[in-house]
Structure formats: structure tokens, C-alpha cells
């Protein structure tokens, strides 16, 4: 695998921010009760992640090591505020639905984690690609979770697409099935935890097999730098 492939592989699967690093779970679990909510938050996070990785990478050689964290925080906070203002202006209703979780992107550790672990040590194009791939990895999990919860809980998919994509998407909602009583737990926070747990379990189950297909035989000496190390590995 060359470097570009490696970065993509890390972001999308091997070191996925949501499934492996378990970062940013609070917004992930809270807003994914529909597919479109997940998409909205996912895109916002992706934008911030690309923006912060690029900016951090651009300034990485000018910042003394001691003050790098406050500088990263300032960059991330202002990017989030900008995204928040833009969403408020152009996707007003979606912004109302996502509410506090847009400003809370600031506290998504995946973002400062990537700034610290990758962008501050790599060139701008690589940092941008890392931001894109990590953001996409996060986005895909948001979409999966949102889609599964919406189907189980409401029997629909893409409900509220017009909030994000305008009037054009007003009747994109797929009604897959109808039922008297909704499967409530899927919509409520406990359902988010349960489904998230199942996704992680699924990933772990097929980890080796998929890695063998993509990478070939696993290289034992490979050491991955994680943003947050929970146990010595």
C-alpha cells in the first residue's frame, strides 16, 4: 500500500474515528435518529475536519510546541462557528433539528485528535486527505446508524431530505413499512448504544477477513499511531 492508500484505509476502516477510536460518540449517538440528521452532522464534521487539518498543517512549522493546543482549539472553534453560521443561514430547519450538536463539534475529540496526531506532522495535501478520509469514516458510521435507526423506528428512510437538500427532495421519503406502534427503542438513546455496539461487533468480526482482502497478509511489525491509546498494545 502506498501512503495515500494507507491514509484512506486508516480513516475509513482500520482506525475509523467512530468504530475504532470511539471519538465523538456524544453527537454520533444523539443525532442519528434519522438518516438525514446523520448526513447533516456528518457533512458538518467532515468540513470542519478537512478545514482544521489543512489549517493546522499550514501553520505547523510556525507554532512553538508549547502553545500548539490552544492554537488548534482556536482554529477548530472558529471553523465550527463558521460552519454553524453557514448552516443556520442555508439549511435553517436542519440546523434547528441538530441544535446544540453543531456547536458541540468543537468538543469532538476526533478533530483535535487528527490535528495533533496527523496534521501537525504532515504536509498540507496529506493532511487534507487524512481529514477527508477520517471525516468520511465518521460520516459513513453516522449514515449507517441513522439509516438503521430510522428504518427500525419509523419504517422510513430519507425522511426530511428537504431540510438539507431543498424543496427538490421534498418527496424522497421512502415508506418501507407501516406499523401501529413504532419500535421506540431504536429512536431513543439506548437503541443508539445497542446498534452502535452491534456495528462495532460486526466490524471486529470481519476485521481480519477484510484486512486480508485489502492489504494482503497482515504485516506483524506494523505499528499504528492512535490518537487515543486506551490500552498498551
Amino acid at each position: 500500500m502506498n501512503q495515500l492508500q494507507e491514509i484512506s484505509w486508516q480513516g475509513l476502516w482500520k482506525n475509523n474515528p467512530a468504530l475504532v477510536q470511539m471519538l465523538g460518540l456524544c453527537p454520533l449517538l444523539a443525532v442519528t435518529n434519522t438518516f438525514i440528521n446523520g448526513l447533516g452532522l456528518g457533512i458538518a464534521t467532515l468540513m470542519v475536519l478537512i478545514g482544521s487539518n489543512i489549517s493546522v498543517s499550514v501553520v505547523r512549522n510556525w507554532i512553538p510546541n508549547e502553545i500548539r493546543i490552544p492554537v488548534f482549539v482556536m482554529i477548530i472553534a472558529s471553523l465550527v462557528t463558521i460552519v454553524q453560521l453557514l448552516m443556520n443561514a442555508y439549511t435553517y430547519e436542519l440546523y434547528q433539528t441538530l441544535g446544540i450538536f453543531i456547536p458541540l463539534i468543537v468538543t469532538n475529540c476526533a478533530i483535535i485528535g487528527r490535528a495533533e496526531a496527523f496534521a501537525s506532522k504532515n504536509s498540507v495535501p496529506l493532511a487534507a486527505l487524512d481529514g477527508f478520509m477520517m471525516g468520511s469514516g465518521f460520516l459513513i458510521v453516522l449514515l449507517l446508524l441513522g439509516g438503521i435507526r430510522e428504518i427500525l423506528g419509523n419504517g422510513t428512510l430519507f425522511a426530511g431530505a428537504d431540510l438539507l437538500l431543498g424543496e427538490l427532495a421534498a418527496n424522497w421519503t421512502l415508506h418501507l413499512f407501516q406499523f401501529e406502534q413504532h419500535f421506540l427503542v431504536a429512536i431513543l438513546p439506548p437503541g443508539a448504544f445497542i446498534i452502535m455496539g452491534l456495528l462495532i461487533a460486526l466490524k471486529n468480526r470481519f476485521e481480519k477477513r477484510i484486512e486480508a482482502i485489502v492489504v494482503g497478509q497482515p504485516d506483524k511489525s506494523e505499528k499504528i499511531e492512535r490518537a487515543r491509546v486506551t490500552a498498551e498494545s
Partner: protein
Amino acid sequence: MIKIHPISKASAILTLFAIVTTGLVTATHILTKDKIATEKNNAVLKSINQIMPKSLYNNEITSDCRLFTDPNQQTIRVFRARLNDQPTGMVIESIAPDGYNGRIDLLIGLNSNHEIQGVRSTSHNETPGLGDKIEFKKSRWITFFNGLTVNESNIKSWAVRKDGGQFDQFTGATITPRAVVKSVKESLLWVKQQNQIFELPSNCGENK
């Protein structure tokens, strides 16, 4: 050459970053300010249009707005509808503080006889699938209010069936409709005591 102390250098860099990032946020704020204000106004107008027949008014209803304090000491907005400067109705905000999961914000449209033209929930945190049937999108329950008034002879019927009133509760969720009915009732009683709603100058809405 003077040697710059590392702390001075660090503070200078931090200051520079603070200025640049604040500048960017300010620029975005200035660029999006008007758009956000328009969107907010449109959102209010959209909900007003659902509960106030357009034939009833021809004023700029979103800017003809007055702040009041409701019986629960919450600040509410009252939008005054006028047809050729004659008062024809109003849209009032009603806050039910006792929903199942926090407060429920409602908008009530009234004509000049204090007959309900429509009620809509604007924000709530009720249980999805149970309490959220108060939303017009989810169920037509809220349209039961249309045409009703409150007076001394019918005040007893302003309750859910379980409490001996005329409003359906939802299976598995009584607290939510109970809170909504109570809040609408109290708002209507409150409006009856106000006699200056149309005289007072506007102090909220898009011009503020």
C-alpha cells in the same frame, strides 16, 4: 540583535491567531447575518400561515409583535393581525411548562372573537412515537382545537377524556396532551383579561 523571550514570542503568536480566527468568524457573521434573519422570519411566518387564514390580515404580521409575560412568568410573543389597520386576530405563543420531557412551545391563532383558528407545536422533546403526536406532521390531533373557545360554560370540557374532558389522549401518553390542553386553555383565559394587546407599540419581530 535582541533575543526575544520565548514567552513573548508565544504570546505574540497566540494573539495573532486570536485576531485572525476572530476576524474570520466576524466576516462570516457579517456575510450570513441578513440571510439568518430572513430565514428566522420566514420560519415564523410559515407557522403563522398555517394557523391564521391569510384573508384575516394584510399587515406585516411578523413585525407587528409585542412581548408579554404569561401567567407562568414566561416571556411570550403576541403577533397582531390587522386588516386595513383594524384588529382581526392574533397569534400568541403559549408555553406548556409541564410536558413529559420539559417544555412544549405552541403557537395559537385566534380571531377577534377569541375563536381558535389553529394550534401548532413549534418545539418539544416529547417521546417519539407517543407524545410527538401533538405535531401536525405526525397526527391531526392538534386540529381538534380549531373553532373552539373557552367560556364559563365549557371550561370543564377543556381537559383530556381521562380527566372528564373532550380531548383524546394518546395511547400510552396522557401527560403530553394534558399539558397542551391546559396550556392552550390558560392562554385563552389570559388573552381575555388583556385589553391592550392591539394598542401597545410593537417591541419584537424582525425590526428588533
